[in-house]
């Protein structure tokens, strides 16, 4: 397992895909949030209308709400693309054939891939929360007080939960033997999640839970949140099982 973790970590750190996604997720989301916050301050009615109740808030509360609201769908896109690459690239590059007949079982290799991906999402979520804090200072909101810190922690947790939501993309990339099936699954998950949020079906569907928690924390309980890791564990199990039973017959 250690050898698989070392290999997957080395591949991820050398990857242009992972580096680009990290930069886009952290810098892109914070820059977009800053632009929207400034647009609200300058009285842009279109942006105010789109943001709804968040536009009425001020300072840290509005900034954290904006970053959280954007990071749930945008994060899922970035995370899904990266996991699709981590898994699907073995098929696209043809390297999967070299992962047979090794003393390190394919189940361990798949587990290592998911572990490295999960660790990366935790770090990206932390970097996003740190970048949001920095932006708050730059915008002159002062040091975050005890009322703001829980919001920043929730922002980090939304990122971590969003990363977990991308796990089904890894399973589909395995079954579909490539990157594109995983990316397509990510897009379906984002669309499905947004439809559920707009339809007001509530937080019982894990795909919508992080977005709802970001927008309206009071409507989401710990039970709803716990469904997200449970669902991702199910798909992680499916992914490692599919790798274990893999045959190169198509």
């Amino acid at each position: 397992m250690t050898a698989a973790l070392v290999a997957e970590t080395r591949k991820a750190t050398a990857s242009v895909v992972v580096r680009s996604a990290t930069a886009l997720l952290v810098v892109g989301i914070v820059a977009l949030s800053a632009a929207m916050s400034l647009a609200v301050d300058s009285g842009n009615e279109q942006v105010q209308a789109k943001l709804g109740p968040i536009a009425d808030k001020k300072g840290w509360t509005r900034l954290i709400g904006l970053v959280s609201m954007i990071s749930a769908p945008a994060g899922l896109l970035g995370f899904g693309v990266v996991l699709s690459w981590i898994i699907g690239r073995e098929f696209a590059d043809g390297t999967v054939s070299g992962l047979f007949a090794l003393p390190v079982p394919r189940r361990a290799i798949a587990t290592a891939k998911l572990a490295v991906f999960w660790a990366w999402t935790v770090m990206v979520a932390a970097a996003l929360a740190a970048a949001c804090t920095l932006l708050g200072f730059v915008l002159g909101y002062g040091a975050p007080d005890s009322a703001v810190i829980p919001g920043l922690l929730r922002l980090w947790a939304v990122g971590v939960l969003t990363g977990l939501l991308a796990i089904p993309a890894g399973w589909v990339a395995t079954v579909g033997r490539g990157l594109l099936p995983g990316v397509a699954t990510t897009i379906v998950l984002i669309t499905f999640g947004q439809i559920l949020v707009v339809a007001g079906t509530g937080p019982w569907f894990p795909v919508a839970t992080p977005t709802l928690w970001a927008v309206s924390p009071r409507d989401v309980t710990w039970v709803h949140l716990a469904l997200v890791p449970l669902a991702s564990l199910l798909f992680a199990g499916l992914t490692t099982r599919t790798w274990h039973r893999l045959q190169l017959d198509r």
Partner: protein
Amino acid sequence: MAELKCSGLTRVFPGGAGVHRIDLQVEAGQVHALVGLNGAGKTTLLRLLIGMLLPDAGTVGYGSRRLGDVRPADWARVGHMVGHPLAYPELVVRTNLALAARLHWVSPNRVGGVVAMAMAELDLVKHADQRVRILSQGNLQRVGLAVALQHEPDVIVLDEPTSALDPSGVLLLRKVLLRRAAAGAAILVSSHHLDEVARIADRITVMNRGELVGELDPTSPDIERAFFARVLADDQSRVR
């Protein structure tokens, strides 16, 4: 464990292609060549032997163990290149070899030495710090061969290992395989370069239309003629 064998091995794909009732034994200390025309089923057979495909019938054995019972410690003594080399384009040659060595259970303190020796043996030292992405097909194949051979395996399975190599690469590979065979390794190599195979193989088995159809004498003066005669005889026997 240095022995690879299969018995009654069959795998048929939709449409009827595949391999049928294959009995094969690759013995310790021998280079066993599998020759056949394109589409004869060589790659399918090699995939079955290393578990990339599961058979419809028959068994594969590594030493005294069946494929499903092979332990991780036994897999650590196997090296193969069947399909694309295990080499990631974003990593340099040295790193690729080091990661592959770890995946073959080479202990971390030995990895540096093992990689250095493999690069010297396959003349890859000048490419050590180049990304695999920019290598030529021939050098990529050398990296794949180094991945398969650097941990000094007892069982070696190579599919068309010289297809992209230049003459000097072919000579280097020949030397490495003969050295491994002399150390007791069982080596199975598929090829359709008959002259090249004849130079190092102890046994040559002919495959045609998914079946083993006989053997050739590696010392035969006109091995090409003997090969085509064997294939033609098999084709004619199927027509009758």
